[in-house]
């Protein structure tokens, strides 16, 4: 198997792997890997997204699903919600209690996550139970590697503050 095929195979097996991790795991030089990724992106077999100072790599055939996942984890509160749901399904009040947020704030984030399709809900009596509806391994891989830049952290804090203030109406 040549190097490019090895890179493609690894990305297919581990969607959301970061550039740095891929170089480490395949024991490839940065320049060499950059060249192969450029050729793979150009031929439409993979795509990459930069987020929080990292470049994440995905197979092209699942672009929509991963795009939604990247949007879903783009604020700190949503990342925390996704991590809590990765441990098991929870209702809104359990999420609010775990995160130290109001139910209204959690409700806003859950609506967004449901809209993105990365979370699903079911009714159990009067309670709505939420669970993940995405590739958990990939999501965990991205969140583990995610290191937001300082202004991204400030922007995330601003979003949380605005949602708390009640200014959470979609544009």
């Amino acid at each position, binding site marked *: 198997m040549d190097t490019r095929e090895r890179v493609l195979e690894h990305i297919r097996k581990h969607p959301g792997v970061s550039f740095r991790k891929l170089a480490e795991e395949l024991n490839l030089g940065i320049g060499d890997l950059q060249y192969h990724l450029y050729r793979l992106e150009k031929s439409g077999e993979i795509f990459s997204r930069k987020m929080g100072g990292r470049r994440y790599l995905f197979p092209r055939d699942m672009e929509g699903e991963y795009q939604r996942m990247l949007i879903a984890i783009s604020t700190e509160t949503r990342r925390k919600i996704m991590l809590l749901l990765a441990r098991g399904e929870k209702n809104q009040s359990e999420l609010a209690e775990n995160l130290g947020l109001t139910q209204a704030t959690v409700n806003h984030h859950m609506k967004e996550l449901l809209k993105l399709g990365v979370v699903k809900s079911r009714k159990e009596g009067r309670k709505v139970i939420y669970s993940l509806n995405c590739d958990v391994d990939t999501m965990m891989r991205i969140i583990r590697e995610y290191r937001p830049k300082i202004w991204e952290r400030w922007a995330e804090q601003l979003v949380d503050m605005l949602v708390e*203030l009640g200014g959470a109406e979609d544009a």
Partner: protein
Amino acid sequence: MLEGLNLVLSLIVLAISVVLAFISWVAYRRSHLRSALYLLIAFMLFALKKVFESFYLLTSVEREVLDSTVAVFEILILSAFFLAITRER
């Protein structure tokens, strides 16, 4: 001397408002919250107001024109802040 100091202070205020506008823009791009968009507008208007005021230090804009323009900017900025805070779900 005092004019020079004023110019430096104005540049600092301008830099802070541009940074805040950038953070609001990142927040809006990530969340699509209208309130973040209003904050972005407010900080951009604030930066523009500062540019206009500093421009006055360097040129000879009439005092009345300056006062009226600054007042319009202030109304727009406060309105944008008001909308950012009061928009309901």
